[in-house]
C-alpha cells in the first residue's frame, strides 16, 4: 500500500488564464514496405489533415518510421509506443504487420497574460496519459476493422487502391467524433456496462433470444441490451467490446428515444388493437409500409483472427430494450424478412422490455439502491470487461461527462499506470487536494478506484470507508483485503 500526496487544482490566478484542451494534430496510416525507395508517398495510406503539403507528409511519416526503427534496436519486440515533445505527443500502433497508425495530439495549452499584456503560451507536457491515448488509437483500428475488416483483407480484395478508399471513407468521418479532451480511464478499459438483472428475467431473455434465432433461422449471433447496458452477447468478447462501443456512443445516441416520453405518452394510445408494439429498426428500413424501403444494413466483421465472418448488423429496439441480430452477409435480408422480424420480434420484445423495467424497479426497491451512492467510483474487471462508473454521467455522442475534477481523473489514470507495472495485487491511497482521497485497489484481474471527500479524514478512516463500499456494492465478488 502506498500513500502519496498530490497537490492539484487551479491556482489563484486561474481567472486570468485561458485553457486549451488537447487536440488532434494529425493522424496517419502507412506501410513502410510500400515503396521504400522511389515514391515515398506510396507508403502513405491515409493522412489527416489531407491539406498538408506532400513533402511534409513524407517527412512526418519518415520521422515516425525512423523513431520506430531506432527504438527497435533497444527493444526488438516492443518498439516505441509514444514520443513526447514539448508541444505534442505522438502515438504509434502497429495493428497488423507493417501497418502503422500514428496519432499526434497537441498537449493542452495554458495561455497566460504576461506583465506587459502579451499572451504567453505554456504547453502542459505532463498532462496527457500515454495509456489513455494509446488506447484511443487502438480503438480507432478496432472500429475500422469492425466495419471494414482487416487492412490485409482489403489489400487482398482490391489492392492498395481499395484500402485507401476504405480508410478515407471511414476515418474522414470517424476522426471528427474523437473527443480527445474527454478521454480518460474508461478509454483504457474499453469496458462494457452490464445491466443488473435477476436470474428469472435473465432466463426469459435467454429464452426470447433462442426462440428468435430459431424462428428467424438466418440469425447467426444475437446481442441484447437494455438501457444501453449489455445483457447478452452471442459474439465473442473482443468483438462485442467494440460493437458495444459503437452502439452506445454512436448508434443509440443518434436516435432520439420516443420511449423517454414515458408510458402514458399519446404514442401508446394511438397504437391499434392487439398488434401494438414499440419495435422499430435502428438500422435498416425506416418505414416498413413503404414498398420501396431500403433494407440495407451496416456490415460488420467479426472473428477476424480465425473464421473471418462478414455480417449484416440489424439493430431493433422496443422501448429501452435493443436487440442486435447478426446475419451472414451472403444472405440479403428482404423487406419481407424485415416485416416478418418486426411482426415476430416487435410484440415479444415490447412485453419483455416492460417486464425487465418492472423487475428492475422491484429489485432496486428491494436492494435499497434507489438512492444515489455516496461514493464516486470506477470499477473494471479485465476478465469479463465489466465496467461500472458513478463518476461518469450518461454518455452523449459528443462528449462523456464526468462529475469530478479533471485533476482527480488524472490521479486515477496515474494509479492505473502504476498497477500496470506490476502483476501483484495492490492498493494505493492518494491524498488529493481539498479533502479528497483517491483509493485504487487491484485484486486478481479487477480494479476499483474510489474518490472520497471527507473532511479531516485519516488513512484508517478512508480505508474503512472503502471496505464498507466493497461490502455493499461488491459483496458477490472476491476481493482480497
Amino acid at each position: 500500500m502506498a500513500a502519496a500526496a498530490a497537490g492539484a487544482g487551479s491556482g489563484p490566478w486561474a481567472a486570468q488564464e485561458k485553457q486549451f484542451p488537447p487536440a488532434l494534430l494529425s493522424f496517419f496510416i502507412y506501410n513502410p514496405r510500400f515503396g521504400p525507395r522511389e515514391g515515398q508517398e506510396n507508403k502513405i495510406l491515409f493522412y489527416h489533415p489531407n491539406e498538408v503539403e506532400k513533402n511534409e507528409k513524407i517527412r512526418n511519416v519518415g520521422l515516425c518510421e525512423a523513431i520506430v526503427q531506432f527504438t527497435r534496436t533497444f527493444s526488438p519486440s516492443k518498439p516505441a509506443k509514444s514520443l513526447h515533445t514539448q508541444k505534442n505527443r505522438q502515438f504509434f500502433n502497429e495493428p497488423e504487420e507493417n501497418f502503422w497508425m500514428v496519432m499526434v495530439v497537441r498537449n493542452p495549452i495554458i495561455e497566460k497574460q504576461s506583465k506587459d499584456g502579451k499572451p504567453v503560451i505554456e504547453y502542459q507536457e505532463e498532462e496527457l496519459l500515454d495509456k489513455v491515448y494509446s488506447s484511443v488509437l487502438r480503438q480507432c483500428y478496432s472500429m475500422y476493422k469492425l466495419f471494414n475488416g482487416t487492412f490485409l483483407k482489403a489489400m487482398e480484395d482490391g489492392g492498395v487502391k481499395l484500402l485507401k478508399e476504405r480508410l478515407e471513407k471511414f476515418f474522414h468521418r470517424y476522426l471528427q467524433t474523437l473527443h480527445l479532451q474527454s478521454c480518460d480511464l474508461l478509454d483504457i478499459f474499453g469496458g462494457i456496462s452490464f445491466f443488473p438483472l435477476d436470474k428469472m428475467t435473465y432466463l426469459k431473455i435467454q429464452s426470447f433470444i433462442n426462440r428468435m434465432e430459431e424462428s428467424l433461422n438466418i440469425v447467426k449471433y444475437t446481442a441484447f441490451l437494455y438501457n444501453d447496458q449489455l445483457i447478452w452477447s452471442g459474439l465473442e468478447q473482443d468483438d462485442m467490446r467494440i460493437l458495444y462501443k459503437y452502439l452506445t456512443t454512436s448508434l443509440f445516441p443518434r436516435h432520439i428515444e420516443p420511449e423517454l416520453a414515458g408510458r402514458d405518452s399519446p404514442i401508446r394510445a394511438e397504437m391499434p388493437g392487439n398488434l401494438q408494439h414499440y419495435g422499430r429498426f435502428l438500422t435498416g428500413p425506416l418505414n416498413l409500409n413503404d414498398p420501396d424501403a431500403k433494407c440495407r444494413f451496416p456490415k460488420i466483421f467479426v472473428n477476424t483472427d480465425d473464421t473471418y465472418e462478414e455480417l449484416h448488423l440489424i439493430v431493433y429496439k422496443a422501448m429501452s430494450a435493443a436487440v442486435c441480430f447478426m446475419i451472414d452477409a451472403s444472405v440479403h435480408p428482404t423487406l419481407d424478412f424485415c416485416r416478418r422480424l418486426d411482426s415476430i420480434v416487435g410484440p415479444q420484445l415490447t412485453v419483455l422490455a416492460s417486464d425487465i423495467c418492472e423487475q428492475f424497479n422491484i429489485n432496486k426497491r428491494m436492494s435499497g439502491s434507489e438512492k444515489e451512492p455516496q461514493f464516486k467510483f470506477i470499477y473494471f474487471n479485465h476478465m469479463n470487461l465489466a465496467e461500472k462508473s458513478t463518476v461518469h454521467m450518461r454518455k452523449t455522442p459528443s462528449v462523456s461527462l464526468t462529475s469530478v475534477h479533471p485533476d482527480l481523473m488524472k490521479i486515477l489514470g496515474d494509479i492505473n499506470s502504476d498497477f500496470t507495472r506490476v502483476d501483484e495485487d495492490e492498493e494505493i491511497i492518494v491524498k488529493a487536494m481539498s479533502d479528497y482521497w483517491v483509493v485504487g485497489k487491484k485484486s486478481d484481474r479487477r480494479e476499483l478506484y474510489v474518490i472520497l471527500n471527507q473532511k479531516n479524514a485519516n488513512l484508517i478512516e478512508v480505508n474503512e470507508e472503502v471496505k464498507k463500499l466493497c461490502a455493499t456494492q461488491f459483496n458477490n465478488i472476491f476481493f482480497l483485503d
Partner: protein
Amino acid sequence: MGEEDYYLELCERPVQFEKANPVNCVFFDEANKQVFAVRSGGATGVVVKGPDDRNPISFRMDDKGEVKCIKFSLENKILAVQRTSKTVDFCNFIPDNSQLEYTQECKTKNANILGFCWTSSTEIVFITDQGIEFYQVLPEKRSLKLLKSHNLNVNWYMYCPESAVILLSTTVLENVLQPFHFRAGTMSKLPKFEIELPAAPKSTKPSLSERDIAMATIYGQLYVLFLRHHSRTSNSTGAEVVLYHLPREGACKKMHILKLNRTGKFALNVVDNLVVVHHQDTETSVIFDIKLRGEFDGSVTFHHPVLPARSIQPYQIPITGPAAVTSQSPVPCKLYSSSWIVFQPDIIISASQGYLWNLQVKLEPIVNLLPDKGRLMDFLLQRKECKMVILSVCSQMLSESDRASLPVIATVFDKLNHEYKKYLDAEQSYAMAVEAGQSRSSPLLKRPVRTQAVLDQSDVYTHVLSAFVEKKEMPHKFVIAVLMEYIRSLNQFQIAVQHYLHELVIKTLVQHNLFYMLHQFLQYHVLSDSKPLACLLLSLESFYPPAHQLSLDMLKRNQRLRGSPNFTPGEHCEEHVAFFKQIFGDQALMRPTTF
C-alpha cells in the same frame, strides 16, 4: 392402419369361464368383479372367478330353483343367492360358522325384490319395486337385522361399489334418480335429480332406460353418465354423453357433455379416468378426457373425442388345454359383438365365449395421434402409467427427425414442472404439518402420493437430457437452448435446479469452446453457486483463465452460504479447498464475509 395405431386393447390374460348355455348360467358381480358359473342351479357345481385370484372358488349347492342373482359379500365371507322374488338365501363361508343356508324375506308387503347389493362383508341392501331395505347379516346367528329402509316406487336400480352409492330410478318416465349412500351401517339419502330426456315424438312415451345410464368415478369424483341418443326433432348432430356430477354433499349437477357426432348403439367404459365410448355400428371407440380443455358455455363444458375413432386392437383368443399342443392357429376374437356386455368401470364380458376382459388404454400409439404436444402432455400427465411414455415424448421432440420448436419444448417442460412443483409443495406442507405435530390430531393428513406424472430433474436428466447432449449431429445452439429452456422452466416454478444440470450446461459449453457464453451465464447467476460447480470451474482454469476468478467468487459466496443445502459437506472438494488454502492462507478461508 398399422398395429401401432390402436390405442385400446383387451387385457392379455382374461378371466375365462364356462360359456353360458341352457344348463350353465353366468352371473357377474360388479362389487367383487367375480364371474359365477352356475351349473344346473348349483347342483353340479358353482365356479367363481375373479380378476385377481387365479384360483377359482368351487362349491356345490342344492338346486332349489332358478338362480336370479348370486353374489359374495366383500372378502367372500357370505354368499347370497336370490331364487324367488320375495326372498334371498344366505350361506356362510366363514370357517367355524354353520354352512346351513338361511333365508330373509323382504319386509315390504307385496314387494318384489329386483336385486341386492353387498355394501360390506356383512351388510346388504335389498332393492324392491317399492323401496330399499338395508340389513346387517349376523352369520353366527344365521339371521339378518333390518338397519333401515325407505319406501318409494322403483323402476330399476344401479350400484356403484367404489363409491357405495345406489341409484334408484323413480317416476313414470323413470328419469328421476334417487341416490343413496352407504357407509358403516348407515344409509343416507342424497338429493334426487332429474335427467332431461330428449324431446320425442308425441306418439311415443319417452322414458329413461337403465341401459343408457352408468355410474363411474372419474378423477376421484362420482359421475352419472347418461347416454342421450340422437333425437330427430332436435338439430343435434349426434348422440352425446351427459355427465352429472354427484358430490358427497349437495345437489347433483350437469357438468360435461361429450359430443359423439354419430348415432347408433353405444356402450360406455371408464378406463384410467377416460370415458370410452364404443360404437357398435362402426366397430370403433373414442375416448374423452374431461380434464382436457373443452368449450365452456357458462354452465356445461363440451368435449370432443381426444383422438380419432379406432377399433379396439384385434384380439386372438388364446388356445389353452390340449388344443394348444396342436399347430392350430389362434382364433381371432369377434370384437364389438352383440353378445358383449359392458360393466363399469372397465369390464367387457363375452358370455357366449366365456371371457372377461379389462379394457386398457395404450399410451404409445397416442403419441403419434395427437400432434399438439401441449395437449398431448396434458393428456399423458393424467394417465396412470405415463412416465416412460412422457420421457419418450421428450426424447422424441428433441430428436433430429421430429424436432419440435423451442416454444413447444418450453410448453412441455412447463407442464412437467407444473406437476413436479405441485408434488414438491404437497410434500413440503406435509412435512411441515408433521413437524408441527398435526399428524395425530388430523386424520386427513396424508402423505402425498407420488404419481408417475411427477417427473423430477433426475428423471429428465437420466432419460432425456444426458443422451440428448451426447448427440453429435445436434447443433450445439439447439442443445444449449433446450438446456436453458429446462432451467428457465424450473426457475419459473421456483424449483431449485440440481447441480448436475448446471454441469451439463457447462460441459456442453466447454466442449464447443463457448467460454464467453459460460462466463455470461455465471455472471448472471443462472448457474447457481455450489461447491461442486466452483471446483469444476477451478479445473477449467487452464483452458479458460477467467474461470479462476469465477471460481473464487463462488467460493467466497460459499463462505457466506455455509449451511445452505447447496453446500452440504462431503462433496469431495477437499483438494481444491486445500489448493485455495495454500494460495491464500487459512485466513482467507476462515474469514467471515466482510473484507
